[in-house]
């Protein structure tokens, strides 16, 4: 029970701090909209082309916009040496990871939920034909990005060029999740239900989420203290 309480306390703290400053969420949201807008001008895709590229397009936007939020997650602890206080508190690394991870997930998912209808308008696509399946894929894909991004955010927090280093380190690790999420999203936006080959991609997403979450839970203490 204490573990869950600590997770919730850290999540609530991060969300409250972000809602007061709106540093990361505003930047992330604006970035997502601008990228969607620029790409819609750049390619002027037909409806068929859009359906083919929709998964890739969406997840590239989600990834770049999400990175802005992930970068801020541990950087927020640096002023006043707040990270020291968190490390010194009797909070397991796993609770710290989950608390920060859930806050990151909520913020990134909020950006995605707003960006999705904007994508539909800019690209003239009816994206909601498999709404709940698409939500499931977004939840799984976003959690995968969040789990990896959170633990690598802790790893790079004291590096001088962390804004550059975080994407360089995490994007290659995120490739399996992105592949699954892109393939599934493309077919779901096109209106196909999850069945047959798509189930394999869904299982891959679930598998990677479980593996990366378990690794992060175990490794967080080592990442923070060495």
């Amino acid at each position: 029970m204490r573990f869950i309480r600590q997770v919730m306390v850290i999540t609530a703290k991060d969300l409250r701090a972000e809602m007061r400053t709106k540093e990361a969420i505003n930047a992330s949201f604006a970035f997502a909209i601008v990228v969607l807008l620029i790409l819609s001008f750049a390619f002027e895709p037909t409806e068929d082309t859009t359906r083919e590229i929709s998964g890739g397009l969406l997840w590239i936007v989600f990834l770049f916009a999400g990175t802005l939020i992930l970068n801020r997650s541990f950087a927020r602890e640096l002023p006043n040496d707040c990270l020291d206080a968190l490390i010194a508190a009797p909070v397991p690394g796993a609770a710290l990871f989950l608390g920060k991870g859930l806050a990151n997930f909520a913020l990134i998912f909020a950006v995605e939920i707003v960006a999705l209808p904007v994508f539909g308008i800019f690209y003239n696509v009816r994206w909601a034909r498999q709404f709940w399946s698409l939500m499931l894929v977004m939840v799984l894909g976003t959690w995968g990005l969040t789990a990896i991004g959170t633990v690598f955010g802790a790893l790079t927090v004291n590096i001088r060029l962390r804004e550059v280093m975080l994407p360089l380190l995490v994007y290659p690790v995120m490739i399996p999740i992105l592949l699954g999420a892109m393939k599934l999203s493309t077919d779901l936006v096109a209106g196909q239900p999850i069945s047959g080959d798509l189930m394999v991609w869904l299982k891959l997403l679930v598998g990677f989420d479980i593996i990366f979450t378990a690794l992060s839970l175990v490794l967080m203490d080592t990442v923070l203290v060495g």
Partner: protein
Amino acid sequence: MSAAAVDCAGVWKFYGDYPALRDISLSVPAGRCLALIGRNGAGKTTLLRMLAGYSKPGKGLVTIFGKSPRETDTRQRIGFIGHGISVYDELSAIENLRLFGRLYGLPNPERSASEWLERTGLERVRDGLVREFSRGMRQRLAVARAFLHGPWLLLMDEPFTALDDRAIAVLQTVLRDALAAGRTVVMSTHQLREAMDLATHVALLNRGRLAFQGERTQEMVKDPGWVYAQYGES
């Protein structure tokens, strides 16, 4: 409870190949106050951070009340004041203390937070955001944060540096109360007069080595620079 609150046995710490701490063996009995003194770069902060569990020794063993500093119940018993105030600018004073009260599992974080705001003279600004606080108010809040959970060991890295008069008075009062209640204090400092006033033991670090450790004597009270004169580098 073990007789020694803090025990270091043959501790080394390396930054790359450079040994920041060299074969430190140090013991602080429970209920005592150790003043850790030394020039800049002597290794005081490195040693304190190791005692607080922020880093591990390259060689040797550190124990706090007989256990590793990273064990959860050990961390529950440690309060740390470092160079930063370790409170969040985006949160109010009461929100900061409530947050740490909950993380430390206090039975009534709200009441504990209110009590410490009162003790540090911050009850009037309890709902004010920390980013709007003056430097002195922020420092008093840092003191409240470190003492909130009733730690048995207080680790303080130059706690009197840059404090205003009121914050110094608050800190001295809560430190005296803590020592009277049997708490152990380890503080690094350059403010020798304040340190000798509170300390029961003194340790001098010199370029990563322990040059002296022992009980505080009357010579040290009369002349706070006495330890440097006897054991420090020329």
